[in-house]
């Protein structure tokens, strides 16, 4: 049974469109491999941060909405931690369940 999650990523602004796309593709690959599915990919663009993070005052926010088996979330988060250019991330479980996807 897959649950819907949402992860907000704060990427380094220095990554550029190429680099950030690469990071997101790897994450998408991991979600796919673990039997999940990306539902939404919401790019907020480069925004001013409330406080400096790693001496940067701007950051690139990307919100991912996906379904994933609950035990695979920690695996995804581990990969996020290892990835370069991701300053911060926050995973939140969303209310509704996804009935559509069966494994």
């Amino acid at each position, binding site marked *: 049974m897959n649950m819907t999650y949402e992860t907000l990523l*704060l990427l380094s602004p220095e990554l550029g469109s190429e680099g950030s796309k690469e990071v997101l593709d790897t994450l998408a690959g991991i979600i796919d491999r673990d039997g999940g599915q990306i539902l939404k990919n919401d790019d907020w663009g480069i925004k001013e*941060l*409330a*406080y400096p*993070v790693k001496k940067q005052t701007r*950051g690139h926010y990307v*919100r991912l909405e996906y379904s994933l088996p609950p035990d695979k979330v920690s695996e995804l988060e581990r990969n996020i931690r290892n990835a370069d250019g991701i300053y*911060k991330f*926050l995973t*939140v479980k969303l209310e509704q369940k996804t009935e559509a996807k069966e494994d």
Partner: protein
Amino acid sequence: MVFRKFAPRKKFCRFCANKDIELDYKNVDLLKDFITDRGKIIARRITGTCAKHQRQLTGEIKKSRQMSLLIYTATHSTHVHKRTV
């Protein structure tokens, strides 16, 4: 009564009154109404939010802070450093 010059307007919980308001850490503009200029969460005594929604609100503000969408404090250490140097 003598010591009570005016009756304060009855406060109400904004989230109970309007169920459409989505309490979410991404909704920064909304959360900004419930923190002070210095970034402190305003007590529900002041805002009139009900206990249930204040609990949710607090959680969302803290999530928002983690993601650098809201400030923890108006004077983050690096700012202070910049000013003194």
